[in-house]
């Protein structure tokens, strides 16, 4: 077992983990932050995307010990301080960017990483950025629309196919 200490959503946390403990398991089982979803556990689906030191990564494909000392952000830390939805989350609600909601934590975390890097992406750039996030309900159109809207762009011209 190894001791790890990291900052998760602004709070310092510590834990004892095995070498094999995945970051997704540490978040979900040890910290009880179950908003980070594990869809495939094979690095395909992106439901477990979190930010480690500001960069989007798949929590199922890194070990918890590798995040020792890191600044970690998960979906639980995305809402505004008063508990209301942040701009991206609100846009997902407004534009029906989710149905079952399973992929949504990863989608929101990927969207946040994209908009930090590229505040006004084109529709194509949004679609390319979501290559590692799989949604089996929506067909992506409304997710793309929500992210475009969250970036402050006019989405009235994007077809609701």
């Amino acid at each position, binding site marked *: 077992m*190894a001791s790890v200490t990291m900052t998760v959503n602004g709070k310092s946390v510590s834990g004892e983990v*095995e*070498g*094999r403990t*995945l970051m997704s398991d540490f978040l979900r089982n040890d910290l009880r932050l179950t908003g980070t979803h594990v869809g495939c*556990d*094979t*690095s395909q689906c*992106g439901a477990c*995307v979190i930010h480690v030191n500001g*960069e*989007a*990564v*798949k929590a199922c*494909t*890194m*070990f918890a*010990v*590798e995040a*020792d000392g890191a600044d970690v952000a998960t979906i639980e830390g995305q809402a505004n301080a008063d508990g209301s939805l942040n701009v991206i989350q609100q846009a997902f609600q407004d534009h029906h960017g989710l149905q079952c909601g399973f992929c949504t934590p990863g989608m929101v975390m*990927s969207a946040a*990483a*994209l908009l930090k890097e590229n505040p006004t992406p084109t529709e194509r750039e949004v679609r390319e*950025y979501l*290559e*590692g*996030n799989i949604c089996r309900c929506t067909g992506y159109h409304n997710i793309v629309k929500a992210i475009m809207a969250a970036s402050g762009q006019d989405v009235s011209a994007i077809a609701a196919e």
Partner: protein
Amino acid sequence: MYAFDIERPSTIADAVKALKEEDAQALGGGQTLIPTLKQRLAMPSALVSLTGIGEMKGVCLADDGAVCIGGATNHATVAKEAAAHYPGLAGLAANIGDPAVRNRGTIGGSLANNDPSACYPAAALGSGATIITNAREIAADDYFQGMFETALEDGEVITEVRFPVPEKAHYQKFVQPASRFALVGVFVAKYADGVRVAVTGASENGVFRWSEAEAALSADFSAAALDGLTVPADEMIADLHGSPDYRAHLVKVMTGRAVTAAA
């Protein structure tokens, strides 16, 4: 997952020492190795993570103008920091996997694994790069030795990769959309002393140089120079995504596109 020990050294020397333990395995960004461990296709008893080694990260320029990339540098960093110096290489890095994979996966990990459909082997072979390890320097032409086979000895760590910068270069990848690996990828680089063409995703022997195309393109750097050439389908990969004939055809098409995009 099965139980193993994991170490996270902060220097190359400590990593090399840890890798001397029997059955120890280096862990780069883990984007291939961790899924492999989950399936128990590999079961090392100890992992040595290279992600905490600062001296193995980053992009710099050597005195001779070559672009030097630390072995533990992730793809996203190469895409950003090599863009001004070697856009063909940065463009390749920017299209590996997906954004989250690019934030973890490393150049050293990709080259050490030498997946027959990975992108970086095409860049290294197509650029005539030098793979620098803790022990020696290996020319790309000597480094790649077949599917998942390299010149690396047990416990040897890729600390840096040095790319001579060509006059023009481009990488064209026909993406296998589920895996985001190359169904076929071709890296074309035009140097003062000739053109290099490296093909990934196609051959059962891993990345290879298409020497007929190199000769034709060295005489005339245009897609039309490839017109009379054919790529034999012998020893091309056959899977549900493409037959050997299909891949052989794609090699020529993607080479032509790479030349046109580079020119």
